[in-house]
């Protein structure tokens, strides 16, 4: 997975975004995940087929942070979502 990879949300994950934070439910494992405002911003931006590089650009604009640092953090975060099955590479 790199900044040119495309990801999509796993449609079997119930979630809600409220007041800028997100709650995701892993139904099979019975786990509940809390995403802070940046995590929720990333999750919200992921659609049917979203390029990881575009997510990083979006987060930089939204939270006024440097692109290089954001790209690494976004890639790490999306990889962890992928490992947990919340997103998949398309």
């Amino acid at each position, binding site marked *: 997975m790199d900044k040119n990879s495309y990801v999509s949300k796993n449609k*079997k994950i*119930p979630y*809600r975004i*409220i007041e800028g*934070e*997100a*709650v995701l*439910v892993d139904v099979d494992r019975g786990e*509940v*995940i809390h995403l802070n405002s940046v995590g929720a911003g990333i999750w919200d931006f992921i659609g049917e087929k979203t390029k990881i590089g575009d997510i990083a650009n979006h987060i930089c604009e939204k939270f006024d942070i440097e692109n290089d640092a954001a790209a690494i953090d976004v890639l790490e975060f999306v990889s962890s979502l992928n490992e947990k099955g919340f997103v998949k590479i398309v």
Partner: protein
Amino acid sequence: MAEVLKIKIAGKSILLKSEQGDLPGYIRNLPADFQKKALPKSFKRKFEYLVLFQDASQMRFPKDNGLDSAIEIKNNSGRFDVLLKSKPEIKLGRIYPDKGKADFFVYGEQLNKNYFIPFLRNSFQFFIAQAGEFILHASAIVKNGEGTVFTGPSGAGKTTISNFYSKESVLSDEFIYLRKIKGEYFISAMPWRSQNLKTCRLAKIIFPKKSKELKIIKESPVAAICKIMPNILHMPKSFKISENILSFLIEATKKVPCYTMRFPKNDKFMEEI
């Protein structure tokens, strides 16, 4: 001979029936709490349990006390099979949440009698979850007619807190039924483990945590939801039910304030809540 028994749990009318013979004694003689109020003549059943007698001749049932944690509930295309974790070949029953119906299997008269109440409790949870309502591992106290719920993992301090209150003030020290009635949120104790079968308006939810100093912090709706959901009794493994519960909790946590309370083991917290 068929036999039918009508009971109420937290205001919900429930029919228990057997089409093959008399109901086992442990069902017919459910604790008095279940049948405390006289049932109205026009009993309209909300949920229905069919008791089915199974061949027990080859059955080796583990000798235990029927703990909730010994039960596993598996989604089988919308029907939920209730199994024993230690012996998955033993089916305790089936739940059909959409229909408000469940089948409970009876192996002999006594073999799995300890599992009837856990089965009732867990299937009830599946039925009410259709409307996003749920049973929570929690203690609750009533003060001036309003309820405060304390929920968290084992050891967080739920029971420690309820021990500071008089018996009359404690709604429950283990299970609370949380529901919405006409836009307001209410809590009820459950009859299988309760001293006090009242229902009262829910004023706040507290997540206790033992600590050296008393500190109370308001939680955001999302943080509160993430702390409530892991304490739901047997959270059904179903996308639709999880969606229902999320929707319910979003409205509830907007209306009902939620706090994390770090507290030392003394009664100082009582002034704050």
